[in-house]
């Protein structure tokens, strides 16, 4: 057993996040705890469980302790992810959860505490473990409200109903729900993916206070990676992300999206020329929730040639039959790797 590894979190970093409750951006500390990892491990696109290890509950507390040393001086949001479910006893015991809640209360400056879990672990008791924490938010990776996509293409293993039930428990327990939606599951075309994510946002808006749009990227050693390598998948265009975010925002829903891997082959990308600018605009939107920064992309004519390509592909989506037409030349163009 590598004890030093087990006493360190997978990662932790500091950045800004939109603090919905006060409608402003504040600092956010994200901590990825190394735990026994997700028990499900079947989702097509997910490789996070590979970060799991045989850790003790004491290790977990040690990891958090180390991470909190980077806490900002001012008020901040604390986000803890486990590459699994924070409410799963096999990852984090009830005792540990209570200790963590205690720790969060003791720090004092933590205005909001966000943890992630699959819906099957949500229960009144487990939420009670975290009582007394200010602005508790449970994040659930629903990915899509479409049960068919979720079960067949994502292999998520729970239904929209499961999600709704869990969300109700969370809300009854005095916490809020953050819903992760996946832009472009495998086997879903670009156009259908945009439509799906907008429709899903509408359907979950009654349950969730925030939507986090996950722009699908290719993680190592996942089924999705195998599909991608054989040319059966392309991560979404950043133009699709912009489009989806604007549409969701139009419906008065708080939405954000961490453009992980934007501009890279494995991440959401356009042609390689305009990617960086769009990524920055999305990040700016996340903390301001000001849709003008996205509209600006059109008006200000970043208007990369590739936007017309993207638009044409959407226009003819029904006749692509899932082909990916990047054009020989475009695929050789520099997309940062």
């Amino acid at each position, binding site marked *: 057993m590598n004890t030093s590894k087990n006493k360190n979190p997978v990662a932790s970093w500091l950045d800004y996040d939109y603090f919905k409750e006060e409608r402003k951006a504040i600092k956010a500390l994200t901590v990825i705890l190394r735990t026994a990892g997700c028990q499900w491990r079947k989702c097509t696109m997910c490789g996070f469980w590979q970060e799991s290890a045989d850790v003790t509950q004491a290790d977990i507390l040690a990891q958090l302790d180390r991470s909190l040393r980077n806490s900002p001086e001012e008020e901040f949001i604390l986000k803890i992810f486990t590459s699994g479910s924070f409410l799963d006893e096999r990852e984090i015991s009830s005792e540990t959860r209570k200790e963590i809640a205690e720790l969060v209360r003791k720090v004092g400056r933590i205005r909001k505490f966000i943890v992630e879990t699959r819906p099957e672990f949500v229960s009144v008791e487990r939420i009670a473990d975290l009582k007394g924490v200010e602005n508790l938010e449970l994040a659930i990776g629903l990915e899509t409200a479409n049960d068919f996509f979720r079960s067949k293409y994502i292999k998520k293993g729970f239904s929209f109903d499961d999600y709704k039930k869990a969300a109700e428990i969370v809300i009854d327990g005095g916490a809020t729900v953050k819903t992760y939606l996946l832009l472009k599951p495998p086997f879903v075309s670009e156009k259908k993916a945009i439509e799906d994510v907008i429709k899903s946002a509408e359907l979950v808006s009654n349950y969730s206070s925030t939507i986090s749009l996950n722009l699908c990227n290719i993680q190592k050693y996942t089924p999705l990676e195998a599909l991608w390598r054989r040319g059966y998948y392309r991560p979404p265009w950043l133009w699709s992300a912009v489009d989806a975010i604007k549409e969701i925002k139009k419906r008065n829903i708080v939405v954000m999206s961490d453009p992980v891997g934007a501009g890279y082959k494995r991440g959401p990308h356009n042609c390689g020329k305009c990617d960086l600018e769009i990524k920055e605009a999305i990040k700016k939107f996340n903390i301001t929730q000001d849709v003008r920064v996205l509209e600006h992309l059109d008006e200000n004519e970043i208007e990369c040639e590739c936007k017309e390509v993207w638009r044409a592909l959407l226009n003819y989506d029904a006749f692509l039959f899932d082909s990916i*037409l990047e054009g020989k030349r*475009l695929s050789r163009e520099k997309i940062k790797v």
Partner: protein
Amino acid sequence: MTKFYEVRRRDGAARIGFLSLLGEKKQTPLLFHVESLSAGEEAIKVIHAEDSNFNELFQEELWDVPRGAVLLPEVHPLFNKVQEAIPSLHVDCYVLSFASAMLNIPREFVRRIIYARNAIPPDTALWVPAIATAENAALLFYIGADLIDDLNAVINGYQSIYQVEEGAVSLRELEELPCTCSVCSSLTVEELREQNSKERVLLLAKHNTLLLEKEVKKVKAHIRAGSLREYVELKVRSSPFLTAVLRILDLENEEYFEKRTPVARNHGMMANTMESLKRIEVKRFASRVLERYEPPMRKILLLLPCSARKPYSLSPSHLKFREAIERYRGRIHEIILTSPLGVVPRELEVMYPAAFYDIPVTGYWDAEEREWVSSCLRAYLERNVRNYKHKQIVAHLSGTYKELCSRTAEDLGIDVVYTCEEGEDVTSKEALKRLKERIAELCGDTTRLSGFEKKASMLKAMADYQFGIGAGSELVSRKEGEKIKISGKFPAYKLSVNGDVLARIVPEYGLLTLTLKGARRIERFLTAYTVQIGDFLPKGSVLAPGVVNADEQIRVNDEVIFTGKMAFGVGRAKMSGWEMVESRKGVAVDVREVEEVEQS
């Protein structure tokens, strides 16, 4: 099962068919325009297994326009659902999804299309969407696609990609528009670049589409002529990827093409490339010479070189050989050594493709060609020399022919008499004189071959080649009380018995055709060429739904008989036997002669 699609002609895996769109019959290979597709002008309905109305495809109701099902790759979670549904679907076409994924690896390109074609009924159309270019279209149709579209051509317009017959270039790189289409002849490359972006995209897309349209027309002309293979060999040169695809098709998918390649064509066969050696026609000829040809029992086996003119007998060189050996021909079995066919027995020189091939003659043979021809000769000698009592082998060969022969004979430990000296031309006076003298020495007394014997041996060999050993001698051997006559000018011979014509050689196709009487005569040898039909009397043609059973080995242009409770007839197969059985539409057999069968 199809309703709005019908295949009319075949050349290998490629077909010409008709798709009825809004009452208008459109010929396939067909190019769909995405603009009209998305405007709904092309009334065609394609349903995906994930769509809620997929079940409609199991029913015949609502089938009022051509419709299709999406074929999914094995990696797709609904792959099995579609695979299992195929036998029960009422559709006219299947659409290959994720087509672009096969553009990464040549083997995938081959595998995906062939897998699709094998999975779906032969009478349905295959649509390979979104990836067609003027460069790859011929190959797509060659492997078995029937429908393509201009989506890639249009998207390339947006991407500033200018397609040419042999690929694509960036508009930026062009100094001149290398095309005469309506777009390119109306403006210069500078003018095209200076258009506003919307206009430029439309013009580029139009050029790309026109180019693709032209390519589809060319392919159709080649399918009709029976020359698609030659055209594909030419087209694939534009890229290593496409060349690799053709080589993989030849090396690893022989069965797929063997099942679809016609036995004869009325078109020359050009063997211009290294891939030509691997053609089905070449392999099939070589194997039939071994399996369906019985050499005459003669003392001398004479090896001769091929000639440019076909049939060889009509060439100046062969006329000279003939003159040298004429008096002893009754003792001589002649075979012709050639590339790429290997060994052509004299009796089969009129057969397709022996009388139809052409090769570039330079005197240089590459290693693969040598290897192939040697292996054909070796197999022939091993199989036949002892069995058919050829006591002496004479080779009137020079250069590489001689070299191949002597190496093969040495390997086999067979003695060969050579009648050409080193560097001597086979038609030189000295060589011909030597041939004549050696033959005379070896044969002793003269034994001419009568005109009838010569002609009969041809008809016999051709019948055996077409139908299997046994058919030939049954056809030409005289039975008691019969008067057999073979008339006509070489090679258009006609065999008749007591005044009734039994069979004819059709030099235009390199085939033997049978009359009803001829078919009756050799009926017991035609089991492999029999089509069982339902209880009806066909007139012009036997349609696929009327076929009850047909032998697997029947190929397009094969001479076949058809029998049913009400009819017996003879005709030419228009589709392969397996296809007759699996199809619900299309002409199976063109009837030449039919008679009503007495009901017992």
